[in-house]
C-alpha cells in the first residue's frame, strides 16, 4: 500500500495473548434470560439450519391461513358473509394444528439438551434445574402464544377493515379483543405444558411426538364415541299417517358421559376458551355437548389440573436429574 506521500505504510500484527475478562458479570438473572432467549430461538429455528425454520414458518402460515381466507370472503361478500366463524370459533378451527405444533416442537426444545447432555453443562453454571425448566416453559409459551394470536390478529384487522363502518365495528365488538387475548393465554398455556411434560420423560423426540399426538387423537375419538347421544325413535300415527319422532336423547354412557368428556384432551382448552367467549356451539362434538351438563367450575378445575399437573411433573423430573 502506498501512503499520501508515496511512502509505504507498514503495520505489524501483535498477538496480545490471553486477555482476562474484567467486564460485568450478571449472574443468575443473565443465565435465566439466556436460557429463555435460547429457547425462543430454538423453537423458531433461529441460528439453526433451514430445516429447523421450515416447521415454525409453515405453522405460522397455517395458523393465519383460515383468517386470511375469511377476510378475503368478507371483502367480497360483505355483511352477507355472516355465516363465517368469528374470533370465538378461531381456536377451535386451528386447534389440531396447535397440537401438532406442540407435539413436534416441545420435544425439539427439551429432548436434545438431555440426549446430547448439554444439560450437564448448564447445571454447573449459576442456574438451577428450576430456572432451566421455567425459562424453557416460558420460551415455548411465548412462541405458542404468538402462534395462537397471529391468526386472531389477522382476523380482527380483517373484520375491522372490511366493516362498512370500521369505527362502529370497533365500538360494537371491542370486547372481542380482551376475550381473544385471555382465551389465547389459556389455549397457549395448555399447548405448552402438556407436550413439554411428555417430552421431559424421554430423550427420543419421535417417541414424545408420537405419544402426544396419540394422546390427543385417542382421547378425542374415544370420548366422542362414549358420549355419543342415542335417541329413542317412536312411531306415531297422526291423521292416519305414520310419523317417526326422536325422544329422550341420551349419551350411551348415561350420566357418566359428562365426566368422560373431561378426558378429551383437545376439548379442555377449547372449553376454557368457550367460557371466556361465552360461546355455545350448536353443532359441537358429543363430548363438548356432554360437558355442558357439568357446572362451569368443573371444566375450569379440569383445565387447572391439566395445566398444573404437567408443570409439576416437569419440575419434578428435572429436580431429580443428576449429572
Amino acid at each position, binding site marked *: 500500500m502506498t501512503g499520501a506521500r508515496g511512502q509505504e505504510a507498514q503495520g505489524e500484527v501483535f498477538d496480545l495473548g490471553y486477555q482476562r475478562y474484567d467486564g460485568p458479570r450478571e449472574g443468575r438473572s443473565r443465565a435465566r434470560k439466556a436460557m429463555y432467549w435460547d429457547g425462543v430461538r430454538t423453537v423458531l429455528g433461529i441460528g439453526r439450519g433451514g430445516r429447523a425454520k421450515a416447521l415454525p414458518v409453515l405453522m405460522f402460515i397455517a395458523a393465519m391461513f383460515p383468517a386470511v381466507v375469511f377476510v378475503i370472503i368478507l371483502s367480497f361478500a360483505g355483511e352477507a358473509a355472516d355465516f363465517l366463524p368469528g374470533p370465538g370459533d378461531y381456536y377451535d378451527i386451528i386447534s389440531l394444528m396447535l397440537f401438532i405444533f406442540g407435539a413436534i416442537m416441545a420435544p425439539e426444545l427439551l429432548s436434545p439438551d438431555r440426549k446430547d447432555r*448439554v444439560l450437564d453443562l448448564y447445571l454447573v453454571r449459576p442456574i438451577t434445574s428450576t430456572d432451566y425448566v421455567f425459562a424453557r416453559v416460558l420460551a415455548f409459551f411465548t412462541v405458542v402464544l404468538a402462534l395462537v394470536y397471529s391468526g386472531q390478529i389477522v382476523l380482527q384487522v380483517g373484520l375491522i377493515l372490511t366493516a362498512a363502518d370500521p369505527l362502529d365495528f370497533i365500538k360494537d365488538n371491542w370486547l372481542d379483543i380482551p376475550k381473544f387475548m385471555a382465551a389465547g393465554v389459556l389455549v397457549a398455556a395448555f399447548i405448552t405444558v402438556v407436550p413439554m411434560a411428555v417430552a421431559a420423560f424421554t430423550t427420543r423426540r419421535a417417541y414424545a411426538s408420537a405419544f402426544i399426538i396419540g394422546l390427543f387423537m385417542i382421547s378425542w375419538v374415544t370420548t366422542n364415541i362414549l358420549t355419543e347421544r342415542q335417541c329413542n325413535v317412536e312411531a306415531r300415527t297422526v291423521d292416519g299417517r305414520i310419523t317417526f319422532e326422536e325422544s329422550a336423547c341420551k349419551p350411551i354412557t348415561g350420566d357418566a358421559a359428562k365426566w368422560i368428556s373431561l378426558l378429551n384432551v383437545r376439548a379442555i382448552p377449547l372449553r376454557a376458551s368457550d367460557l371466556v367467549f361465552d360461546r355455545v356451539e350448536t353443532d359441537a362434538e358429543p363430548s363438548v355437548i356432554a360437558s355442558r351438563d357439568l357446572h362451569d367450575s368443573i371444566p375450569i378445575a379440569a383445565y387447572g389440573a391439566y395445566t398444573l399437573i404437567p408443570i409439576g411433573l416437569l419440575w419434578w423430573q428435572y429436580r431429580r436429574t443428576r449429572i
Partner: protein
Amino acid sequence: MPPLLSAIGLTKRYGATTALADATFTVNEGVTGLLGPNGAGKSTAIKLFLGLIRPSSGSVEVLGEKPYESVESRARLGYMPEHEALPHNVTASEFLMHMAQVSGLPPAHARTRAADILRHVGLDEERYRRIGEYSSGMRQRVKLAQALVHDPVLVLLDEPTAGLDPGGREEMLDLITRTGHDFGISIMLSTHLMGDIERSADRVVVLENGRVAQVGAVSGFTQETETLLLEIDDKHDEVTAALKAMGIDAVRQGAVLAVEGADDAKLDAMRDVLAQTGARLRRLAPRRGTLADIFRDAS
C-alpha cells in the same frame, strides 16, 4: 493467599458405599492433578466441588464459598466433562456465546469472549461450522472452550484426553499447560492417566479407594532416585559377574541392570567393567521415580 479449593474431612456416602472418605487437601494456583483409577472417587469429588451433591460429612470450600450453598459461586468455575456434552446443530461460535451468557456475561461481552477463546483453542477458522461436523479432537476443544469462555478462576477437567489419538492428546495437554501457566486460569485435572499428570500438573492429589493416598508436587514424585540403571545390549551375565567381583550387586530387569547407590565409586566401577567386558552400552543414568511407583508402593 487462601487456597482456591479446600476439602476438610470430605466424605460422601451412597447408602452403604463410601465413594469418598475423609479427604483433606487444598488446591492452589496452577495445575493440580486428581489422579486415581476408575472408582477411586474422582467423579464424586468433582461433583462435590461443583456443588451438585452435598457431602455426607466434612466440608468443601471452592473460591471461599460452600458450592452447594451458592449457585452464584459457579459463575467463576469452569467444568469440562469426560463425556460428550455438545449440541450438534449449532455453530461453535453460537454455542460459546450462549454458554458465556449462561455463566452471566452480557451478550456483547459474550460474543467477544467466544471469539477470543475459540482462537486460543485453535478453532478460529472453524467457528462458523456446526459442531456436529467436527472431529472428536475438535469437539474436545469446544468442550474445553466452553469451560473457559467466562474466564473462570478455577476449571475442573474430567479426563480431558479420553478418546483422543496420540496427536490429539498431545495438543490437548499443550492447551491445558498453556491455560494453567500462561492464561493464569487454575486447573484441576482429573484423570487415571499418570502420563497426563506428569506432563501437565504441578501438584497431584492421588485418590485410591475413595481415600487420599498422596498429596504433593509432581516433581517430588518424579525426582532422581538412588538407583543407577545400566542398559546394555549384550553380555548381561558377564557384566553382572564382574560387578559382583568388585563387591557391587546388580539386579537384572530385562536389558537393564539396576544398582543401588549412585556414588562416584560405583559409576567408576561400572565404567571399568564395561571397558573390560566390551559390553555395548545403551544408557547409564539414575532412575527417576514415576507416579506409577505410588500405586506400586501402596499395593
